């Protein structure tokens, strides 16, 4: 069977992690191409529903990354995000969703290397876990055929 290549969606904040990812590129640091980056003004703007939608449309893992505490361009976006993820991650775990498939990190604009490490380690870990079919199968289920 062809080697399973996880599909990872990264929700990142524009001011820190996105700039950090740029730095990773300009510093010629190689990192796994499995990640699709979606840019947000701030981690505070990332709605938890988007993570569910990413899983439903085929993501095997998700990375959410933004500014370190006190670096937020909007002062408190990341603080609000932290409380949201503390609550949301605990709920996902309670529901039996593998929280290793949702990685959270602070990556500043200067931490190009850290961004590469976050992506590479997540890709490797999820390659072990395999595809997240459990979630995707829900979409097709429950519809009576034979209309």
């Amino acid at each position, binding site marked *: 069977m062809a080697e399973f290549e996880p599909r990872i969606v990264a929700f990142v904040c524009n001011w820190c992690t996105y700039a950090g990812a740029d730095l990773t590129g300009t510093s010629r640091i190689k990192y796994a191409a499995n990640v699709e980056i979606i840019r947000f003004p701030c981690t505070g703007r990332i709605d938890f529903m988007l993570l569910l939608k990413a899983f439903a449309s085929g993501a095997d893992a998700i990375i959410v990354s933004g500014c370190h505490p*006190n670096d937020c361009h909007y002062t408190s976006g990341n603080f*609000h995000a932290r409380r949201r993820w*503390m609550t949301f991650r*605990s709920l996902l775990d309670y*529901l*039996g969703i593998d929280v290793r498939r949702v990685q959270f990190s602070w990556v500043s604009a200067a931490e190009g290397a850290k961004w590469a490490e*976050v992506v590479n380690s997540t890709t490797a870990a999820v390659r072990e876990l395999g595809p997240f079919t459990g979630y995707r199968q829900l979409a097709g*289920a429950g519809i009576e055929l034979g209309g």
Partner: protein
Amino acid sequence: MEELRKRARELLATGEVKVVIGYGEGSAGRIRPLFITDPAGAGVLMFDERCLANLAVYLLKAEVKQLGKAAGTAPIRNHSNGLQPAAESQVSDETVRLIGVADGKAVDLPTLASAEEYVASVSLEPAAEEKEALARIERMTMEERWAYWNEQLSRCLKCYACRAACPMCYCTQCTVECNQPQWIPVPATPLGNLEWHVMRAMHLAGRCVGCGECRRACPIDLPIDLLTKKIGEDVAAGFGLRAGSSRKLEYALSTYRPDDREDFIR
């Protein structure tokens, strides 16, 4: 009981309130919410151990608000149901008055502040059996939890009785009714149900007082109160905020502490 009726008659006769929302006998030994607007009608109000339903939902219902200032009766512990809407400026002393009932006696709570003091004398922690119900699932393995919740939630009909019965679900347009984008799938498929119940739980984070009305309202007894109670415990432990504990409580997910502790952000 007689005291409660006397209290209701006085409040209505003096014009202090326009309607008293209370409990009355219903079908087959069940309890039914009652709306008394005429002092003479207060005789049917009653209170006993069956009166668990959370009447605070009516403090926010348009047709009841139109009647004017309302008095809501509830067992003491449930008065947190009145304080949380107050914390979200949905009710105030001008629109609401609470009548407590403790071991059969009516306790007068002229203001929300007095209700707050009275609620402070009672623990808002979940009861032992509620904690056990939460823990029973936490003890399962991840795969067992996933199987358990999928089996339960796939049976959901999306009749939205859980939302209708919850006093904290008062949004004029619920996200479920938004179709641009269609955040929550319309059909009651396993995915549609999971996303609905995750969204409902998250939107009640730090706001659900754990009254259990969503589970009592569910026609097929889905254990959906566990989701909101689980988050309630996380918010209380993580942020020191217990929904319904005060009429000026800050909203957990829109406030923060720079030193909020977590162990999973790299």
